[in-house]
């Protein structure tokens, strides 16, 4: 169950115009999660990450450090597709992150919790919570953080494209429960020779511009009744099967 505080954060996130104007939302999220600060890094291809949210210097420095060093709970969460919870950095085996251990000693970060943002093999980035004091998150806070990471991933992948006149987006939140959407994402990535996140964005953009639900568009792609072209348009006609290679 999501806490009332996190429900409010998600509401603000929906209403917000862009990542840049979201600083207040980030601070509210940190308060709700009971931590001193948080960062959101977006993967921008390769291992480089772009800092999109950063509530304070301590959290930002920690995030910079672990991505510069290439080790730490954040990179580990991204590589492993699983959250990494470190209630007390002082108790981590020294050999786990040897460089980080030395470099982070001067930072006001005692507990760190990292939540990967992504959809299947699509890795969008990572949400990192930093606390000055040691101690675990509560089960409710872990749940809240997961929901936030999921919402931020969806946002980065264009799931909250506002409809015309502020209407609801063309696809509902449950679209990602459908196997067919993920299958279509894989197919489009091969057809257009783009990454999986790019492919999902193209599908969403097409669904949005044609005013049809994402699941319907995906079904057409999987049944090969629709093929997106490089501009993200579909001609609505079945294509002659092209002989690749």
């Amino acid at each position, binding site marked *: 169950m999501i806490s009332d505080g996190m429900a409010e954060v998600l509401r603000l996130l929906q209403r917000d115009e862009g990542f840049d104007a979201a600083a207040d939302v980030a601070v509210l999220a940190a308060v709700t999660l009971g931590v001193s600060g948080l960062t959101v890094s977006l993967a921008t291809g390769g291992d480089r990450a772009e800092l999109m949210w950063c509530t304070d210097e301590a959290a930002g420095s920690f995030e910079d450090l672990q991505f510069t060093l290439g080790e730490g709970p954040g990179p580990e969460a991204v590589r492993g597709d699983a959250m990494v919870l470190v209630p007390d950095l002082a108790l981590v085996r020294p050999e786990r992150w040897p460089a980080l251990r030395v470099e982070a000693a001067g930072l006001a970060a005692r507990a760190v919790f990292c939540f990967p943002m992504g959809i299947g093999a699509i890795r969008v980035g990572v949400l990192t919570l930093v606390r000055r004091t040691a101690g675990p998150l509560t089960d409710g806070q872990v749940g809240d953080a997961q929901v936030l990471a999921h919402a931020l991933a969806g946002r980065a992948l264009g799931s909250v494209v506002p409809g015309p006149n502020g209407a609801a987006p063309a696809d509902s939140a449950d679209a990602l429960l459908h196997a067919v959407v993920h299958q279509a994402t*894989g197919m489009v990535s091969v057809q257009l020779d783009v990454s999986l996140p790019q492919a999902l964005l193209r599908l969403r953009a097409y669904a949005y511009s044609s005013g049809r639900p994402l699941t319907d568009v995906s079904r057409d792609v*999987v049944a090969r009744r629709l093929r997106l072209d490089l501009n993200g348009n579909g001609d609505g006609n079945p294509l002659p099967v092209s002989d690749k290679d």
Partner: protein
Amino acid sequence: MAREQQLTKVFVEVADSLIDDFDLIDFLQRLSERCVELLDVAACGVLLADEHDVLQVLAASDENTRLLELFALQYDQGPCVECYRSGRPRTNIDLADPNVSQAWPEFTPAALQSGFLSTNAIPMRLRGRVIGALGLFQTRGNTLSDADTALAQALADVATIAILQQRTLAHSETERGQLQYALTSRIVLEQVKGILAERWQVTPDQAFAAFRAYARSHHHQLSHLARLIADGEFDTEQIPRSPRHR
């Protein structure tokens, strides 16, 4: 084979799987197939709740997209959702019953259209908490006895243990982490079905059959191999394509 023999076989399989590094999705799929044999049902699916308390399909006895979609329809209605919320099994639900179609107006016709006459849902429980449900469908209108229901519950408990036992490449230090990793693995698998289907110009179902056959015969974990393919780190030309491929 007598039921006792079948059961013994299942539990030996389970013990074997859980000792070694095992692939969760593949394991749950085999378990679903065993459910079909042991319980005399036509189809079985394993559904797990995500962080939004929404049920997602992790594995099904028959990996065809149509069946997966039928389970996916149960995100907000259907016997599995009710079972997940109440924590109690719901058995022998007659899909032709007007009360049933009224209660679940989207799910019921879709299930009937797939040829199912009745359905059952068994909770997956973890120390008093419900984490998902086992969905069972029948095509002949036969019923589950009390003994069948008890056996189904035992199999649901095995599925729960398996989810929490998976040793992932990552350090999943918490139960929530384990559940999330399982759900992510499932999505990667669907994305890879699409990638292979397009590369080979076959349906996703055919692509999956070839992919699974290759993974099993080469002792690759399905989830791990799927991740490698999605990341472009595995040459898929090594996989023999489905026999139906021209």
